[in-house]
């Protein structure tokens, strides 16, 4: 009777809990979506930064021309005259996702533009990501922890930084794919169902489509499998979770053109194959152990172990030989710098120079995961008591992610979900205990508590909860729950002893201290919310295509980039080529629809070096280089008037370095005075005569009469000069973008005549240039 009543009560409670969870999850989704809208509210619905513009352009192409044309797309608008094979060199996941979304909306007669869909893809997928986090954490530690983790993930600053509305980049969908793949892996591990294993392989495929970070998955999961085997946790569920993933996953991954045969040829994937072999050996051992008597088994064991070892050694030797035969030992530079953190700083300056690849300092952690940094250790410990397959996976995930994030600040993004899961577990456990302490020690409640608390507050709470939960989820299939019970047999052997030896006693903490603790926890959570909202609103929402600045006389908006690109698209010929530093390549092709020489996909160093050389050469030499590349217009970004610090003059040393790397006549010391980079009157003559200086500062003195550069905070060195080979055609409102046109060739005959008549004139250098010019 009593048990029937109790079960009835719990089932009603469970039902209410599910409904509540459902609504909470919807709210979490709304939160995740809306916290990312600051960029739209503060600025406008616009695509951000550089790479997203490329993705946007690819998506436009996809929606216009269809998937097959996209797959075979050879883009002749970029890397002129080389062009670029787009279909085979991009991760298509993001583009296909947004394209599909757009297609669905349009077939529902919701006429959204492609741009709108692209802008809001990231916020939508962060809602999905928080739901995936709920699912994953629920598998690890139950629904309470799941909800907490989901709400934490919905507003973790690190993830916000990559997924605000408008930041239409691979990471936007990839983080969702990452978490969802992990969820399906853990789900398979808990259930042993082939259905989930297949889904897992498909989710992995989606991840491979979306982001190069998929190698994290294909290394983390084998690591976990190996860990389980070593610590004696092998089970058939582990086999089902792993083997199909490797086989199907690898086959599917090699379907993505940009991965292709890399899925079996590069060292990043070898770990999975190695573990694949090991798990088969182990499975065989367990199988033989099952069918033989213990004595026979011992005999067979030695046989199998020796044969297995021999096979393993042979395979390892083959793998090692394969790896050793490739020059970088089969590892890409980035992966190597993760394993040996000092690698990049020693050998690959170009990787070491990118700000995303710097090792973070402690404030980065506080900025990006905020108070979660305090909670994670508690989560780790909670995962160890008790340790299950799923929770060991969560621990492994956080440990590897936190180590990698320590090497590269960019990988903070991978750490963020792990930190949310751990903190969710920690928070929910703490709340569980503190609220329990309060509830069962309330004055009027004291009489009841023992009866009610019965099973809920014993030491084995978590354990029994787990069992009931897993059984609940399994009762659709009897066979599975049978297996589960078998598996659980091991634990109950120890469990009854410990719980019997314990006095039936409430596991609670002092009442008033618990109240304080809850208050502090709520305070901590409130601080997290304030910090996240602040980060979303202030730090991570700037689209960097439209700039604003607050000053005493109000808000200033600098929309010069779009002004310039608009000018280009309206005033130049469709086939004109525009040269600029590679940062602006994607934007020029996407917004101005003009052909560029180099863009942000920096695959051809020589080509970039050519542009760098042109920018660092004197006018005449630069004109020749540009002329040889068919360039009609040159675009420079100049921040000296409004104080925009990331302009071309500040990036100029990189142009010199990269140019000098290929063309040795460009030497960095020529541009430096005593090792210092300066543009004032102390600057070197090479610096003052190079094209970048001239194009940036041409007519600059007319603005204020002195030529005061607000970024470098100094007066410029050379104020009055004329351009001989270039003419200014457009300068934006705040002078942030300046566009120059290459002067056409002089008429040959006139030039000759002039050269005779005006041999001593001041235009001598230019005249010579046009005469010698081979083009």
């Amino acid at each position, binding site marked *: 009777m009593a048990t029937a009543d109790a079960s009835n009560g719990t089932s009603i409670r469970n039902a209410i809990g599910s409904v509540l969870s459902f609504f909470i999850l919807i709210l979490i989704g709304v939160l995740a979506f809306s916290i990312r809208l600051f960029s739209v509210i503060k600025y406008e619905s616009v695509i951000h930064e550089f790479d997203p513009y490329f993705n946007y352009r690819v998506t436009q192409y996809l929606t216009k021309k269809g998937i097959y044309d996209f797959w075979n797309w050879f883009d002749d608008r970029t890397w002129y005259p080389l062009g670029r094979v787009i279909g085979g060199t991009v991760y298509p996941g993001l583009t296909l996702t947004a394209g599909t979304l757009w297609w669905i909306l349009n077939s529902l007669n919701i006429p959204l533009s492609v741009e709108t869909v692209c802008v809001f893809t990231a916020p939508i997928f962060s809602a999905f990501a928080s739901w995936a986090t709920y699912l994953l954490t629920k598998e690890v530690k139950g629904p309470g922890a799941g909800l907490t983790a989901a709400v934490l993930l919905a507003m973790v600053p690190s993830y916000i930084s990559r997924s605000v509305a408008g930041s239409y980049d691979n990471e936007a969908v990839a983080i969702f794919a990452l978490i969802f793949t992990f969820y399906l892996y853990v789900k398979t591990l808990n259930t042993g169902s082939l259905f989930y294993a297949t889904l897992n392989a498909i989710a992995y495929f989606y991840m491979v489509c979306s982001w190069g970070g998929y190698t994290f998955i294909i290394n983390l999961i084998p690591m976990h499998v190996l860990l389980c085997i070593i610590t004696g946790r092998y089970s058939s569920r582990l086999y089902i979770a792993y083997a199909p993933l490797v086989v199907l996953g690898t086959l599917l991954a090699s379907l993505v053109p940009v991965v292709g045969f890399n899925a079996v040829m590069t060292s990043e994937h070898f770990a999975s194959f190695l573990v694949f072999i090991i798990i088969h050996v182990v499975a065989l051992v367990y199988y033989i152990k099952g069918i033989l008597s213990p004595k026979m088994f011992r005999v067979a064991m030695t046989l199998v172990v020796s044969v297995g070892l021999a096979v393993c050694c042979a395979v390892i030797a083959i793998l090692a030989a394969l790896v050793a035969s490739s020059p970088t030992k089969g590892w890409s530079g980035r992966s190597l710098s993760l394993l040996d953190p000092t690698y990049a700083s020693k050998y690959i300056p170009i990787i070491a120079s990118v700000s995303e690849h710097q090792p973070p300092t402690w*404030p980065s952690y506080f900025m990006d995961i905020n108070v979660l940094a305090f909670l994670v250790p*508690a989560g780790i410990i909670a995962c160890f008591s008790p340790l299950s397959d799923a929770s060991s996976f969560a621990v492994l995930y956080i440990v590897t992610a936190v180590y990698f994030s320590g090497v590269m600040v960019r990988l903070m993004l991978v750490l963020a979900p792990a930190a949310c899961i751990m903190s969710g577990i920690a928070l929910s456990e703490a709340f569980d205990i503190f609220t329990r302490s309060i509830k069962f020690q309330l004055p009027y409640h004291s009489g009841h508590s023992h009866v009610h608390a019965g099973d809920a507050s014993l030491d084995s709470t978590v354990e029994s909860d787990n069992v009931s939960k897993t059984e609940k989820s399994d009762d659709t299939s009897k066979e599975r729950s049978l297996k589960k019970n078998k598996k659980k047999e091991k634990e109950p052997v120890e469990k009854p002893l410990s719980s019997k030896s314990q006095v039936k006693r409430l596991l609670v*903490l002092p009442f008033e*201290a618990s109240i304080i603790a809850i208050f502090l926890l709520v305070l901590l959570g409130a601080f997290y919310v304030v910090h996240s909202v602040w980060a979303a609103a*202030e730090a991570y929402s700037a689209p960097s295509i439209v700039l604003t600045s607050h000053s005493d006389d109000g808000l200033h908006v600098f929309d010069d980039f779009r002004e310039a690109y608009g000018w280009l698209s309206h005033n130049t010929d469709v086939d004109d080529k525009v040269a600029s530093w590679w940062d602006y390549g994607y934007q020029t092709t996407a917004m101005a629809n003009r052909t560029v020489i180099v863009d942000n996909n920096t695959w051809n160093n020589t080509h970039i070096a050519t542009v760098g050389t042109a920018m660092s050469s004197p006018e005449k030499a630069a004109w020749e280089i540009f002329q040889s590349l068919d360039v009609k217009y040159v675009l420079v970004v100049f921040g000296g008037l409004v104080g925009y610090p990331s302009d071309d003059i500040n990036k100029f040393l990189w142009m010199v370095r990269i140019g000098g790397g290929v063309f040795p006549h460009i030497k960095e010391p020529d541009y430096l005075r005593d090792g210092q980079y300066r543009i004032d009157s102390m600057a070197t003559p090479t610096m003052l005569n190079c094209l970048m200086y001239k194009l940036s500062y041409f007519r600059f003195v007319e603005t204020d009469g002195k030529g005061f550069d607000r970024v470098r905070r100094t007066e410029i060195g050379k104020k009055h000069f004329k351009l001989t080979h270039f003419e200014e055609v457009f300068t934006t409102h705040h002078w942030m973008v300046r566009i120059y046109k290459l002067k056409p060739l002089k008429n040959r005959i006139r030039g000759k005549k002039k050269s005779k008549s005006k041999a001593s004139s001041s235009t001598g250098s230019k005249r010579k240039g046009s005469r010698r010019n081979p083009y």
Partner: protein
Amino acid sequence: MAAIPKSPFLLLVIVLFSLISLAVSSESDDDRVSELLTLQSRSQSGLIRLNDQSISRYLTSVKTPRPYWIVIFFDALQLHEKSELRLKELRTEFALVASSYIANSKDPSSPSHGKLFFCDVEFKESQSSFALFGVNALPHIRLIAPHQGPKESDQMDQGDFSRLAESMAEFLESKTNLVVGPIHRPPLFSRGQLILIALGFLITLPFIVKKILAGQTLLHDRKFWLLGAVFVYFFSVSGAMHNIIRKMPMFLLDRNDPSKLIFFYQGSGMQLGAEGFAVGFLYTIVGLLMAFMSHVLVKVKNVNVQRVFMIFALLVSFWSVKKVVYLDNWKTGYGVHGYWPSSW
């Protein structure tokens, strides 16, 4: 004869002191090159130890242009203890470049053979050479071109030996147009050691496998994994990787007041070692205390003990969070504030 400005007597003394040859100064450039080559082959590291006399013999008293380049490492034994100068490390790296160069241009027919000599000068032995080159700070590496005198020769910048042997070689290659070639670093383990390690591993392998199968290694101990996980976490959030990659010191000396030490660096791009560990500790301790409360303290029977420990844990946690927030605001200069729309 005419090429040597000093008197014949002094010259004789010099020659006697130079320990190499008894021939008089009328000898040709070729002789000097071969002398330098023999000196080079005699030294183990490939560095030629010069003193005041030999410097005059091979540098100042030779008619320019000399047929060779000389690169000199200025060394001072008594400064080897000062770790911030990195003299020892730089000297071994310099020797590495020397031996690599020698090995790469061993063949007499190669264009680099006998064109560049790596020398070092010890401060105690040859103080006047230090004065001759105007060296008053170490580390100091100088490259003397065939036509240059000691004063006008090129000095290797701080930047040129920042990446050790590789950047030194780059500097030399760019200045001399000679080919230094790949740097031959001695392998971490010698061949014999490697074989021993492999053998040892093979022998212990069966035992390890047996242990693993029996399930009684350290790896089966949860506490080991737990400690490992928490340690990795602590290590990473303290930014230790940043300190390793950037070779940050644990603390700095205050420039204004040398008796004071700076433990905290203002500015978010950089951190000091001690600072990182301190904050990493604060990051970790809060979570550990929380776990302590929810896993250990609940099992304690005495209510008062629970109360005291809990109050203590809460106070420490509160203080740590507050401290980190304060430090973060101080270091980065961000002012985190609530974000309320001022108007709709």
